[in-house]
């Protein structure tokens, strides 16, 4: 039993270790104080960079204006992201069934990952009309390829010996996929999902920049127009918070599922 206890003890210790939470908070505080002092000492103009305190104050003051845009962007990112995850994994699963499709689709997927979707947005606005909710589509086509690419990588790089094990016990194609191919790809699936968080956020905000009218991206430009620099920065920070929160959730889920990788 000793060994088992040792394993669980180690897991618990990792969970409870407060350093992981305190260290980043300390860094954040240092940056905050450093900026506050530095910006004041060198009399940096507000349009270059307002002090953190002013950003927070300004943002709180205008929060009633920002909130609808915040909720809109949050909605676009979350819906797009939630569609992109199964879409990316499913496409990868489909492609991986046939070697020839993998060969054909891999360059296409990489091409889609690399192309900045912002270049397509003006065109898409033409095709899709101007319903702001259609920005979800931008998020989906921005995030799906990166999830698909990583997942596909995991699906096609399975050790031959593991597949032979499946063969030696007569596993069906589905069993082999569920027990071996998919599990083998899981760490890479999560890498794709985490990158997908970043891509979704970029997609949503770039759509705002081009299509205007709604969303945090649009709000940043509006605030700038009236020289509300504090509020613009506040919006940028809110966007970052959305991205970081999604990323953190994905990472938490990964730690719960991918137990065998330390």
């Amino acid at each position, binding site marked *: 039993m000793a*060994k088992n206890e040792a394993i669980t003890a180690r897991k618990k210790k990792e969970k409870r270790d407060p350093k992981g939470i305190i260290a980043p908070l300390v860094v954040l505080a240092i940056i905050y104080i450093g900026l506050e002092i530095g910006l004041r000492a060198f009399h940096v103009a507000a349009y270059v960079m307002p002090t953190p305190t002013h950003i927070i104050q300004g943002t709180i003051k205008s929060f009633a204006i920002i909130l609808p845009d915040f909720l809109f962007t949050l909605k676009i990112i979350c819906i797009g992201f939630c569609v992109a995850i199964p879409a990316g994994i499913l496409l990868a699963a489909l492609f991986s069934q046939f070697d020839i499709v993998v060969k054909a689709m891999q360059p296409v997927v990489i091409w889609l990952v690399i192309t900045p979707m912002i270049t397509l947005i003006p065109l898409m606005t033409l095709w899709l009309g101007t319903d702001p909710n259609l920005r979800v589509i931008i998020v989906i086509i921005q995030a799906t390829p990166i999830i698909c690419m990583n997942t596909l990588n995991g699906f096609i790089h399975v050790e031959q*010996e593991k597949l032979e094990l499946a063969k*030696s016990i007569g596993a069906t194609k589905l069993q082999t996929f569920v*027990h071996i191919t998919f599990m083998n790809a899981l760490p890479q699936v999560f890498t794709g999902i985490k990158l997908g968080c970043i891509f979704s956020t970029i997609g949503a905000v770039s759509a705002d920049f081009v299509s205007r009218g709604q969303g945090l991206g649009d709000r940043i430009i509006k605030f700038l127009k009236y020289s509300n620099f504090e509020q613009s920065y506040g919006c940028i920070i809110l966007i970052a918070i959305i991205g970081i929160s999604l990323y953190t959730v994905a990472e938490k889920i990964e730690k719960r599922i991918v137990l065998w990788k330390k």
Partner: protein
Amino acid sequence: MQEPKIKFDHVTKVFQTRSQSILAVKDYSMEIAAGEFVSILGPSGCGKSTLIRMLDGIIDTTEGDIFIDGQKVNYAKKKMPQSILRKMGFIFQQPNMLPWFTVRENIALPLRVFDLKGPEWEKRVDELLELVGLTEYAKAYPAEISGGMLQRAGVIRAMVHDPEILLMDEPFGALDELTREQMNMELLDIWTRTKKTIIFITHNIEEAVLLSSRVYVMGTHPGRLVEIVDLDLPRPRTLSMITQPKFIQYREKLEGCIGEIDLSKIK
């Protein structure tokens, strides 16, 4: 004569790669009775793995037939049916554990695939874990236990669905000398108690003599059978037999067989 448990009838295997075709096994025949413990001995690359991979349906044959209990089992290009696969357990050269499953889940995997459910099978997993001293590591992941334990897990995974035949592809080759000797003794113990038919592949002459009742010696270029040596040594075998004259005599005979192969390669 009693029907052989396993029969290779003039089996040939050619691997077709893009640039060439490799004759891995040429015209190989052997017959193994139920409950026998035989070894296949030969230098690396002589087609030993290819032989038992054909038997276990991992790859197909090019020519010739393989029979288990008189039933032809090599279906060209078709998957071997589960009813036949269930008769065999394959132990790989590397432990070949799936890192994402716990030790217990790994060992129970054949049961899931063969759809063997119920408390009696659960109990069997527990008993096997107990047998090789892995009970307390059942919930550990493969990355958390030692090489020797992993290979033990590999052995009981191959036995979990109670196969009649064990196919072992240089199972203890990656282990250190001491662990290897210990594992060999444990294996003999398991064989004595369960009377399974065992094909044991090795390139270690001493191991072949110590364990088996008969040794099939293979040669390279092309991979083929060069000699069958029956070992008339008493059972149960012990490590102390290694120094007995009869043991040494067999060892030297096998060394001779292998030596001839090397000479023929030089020519």
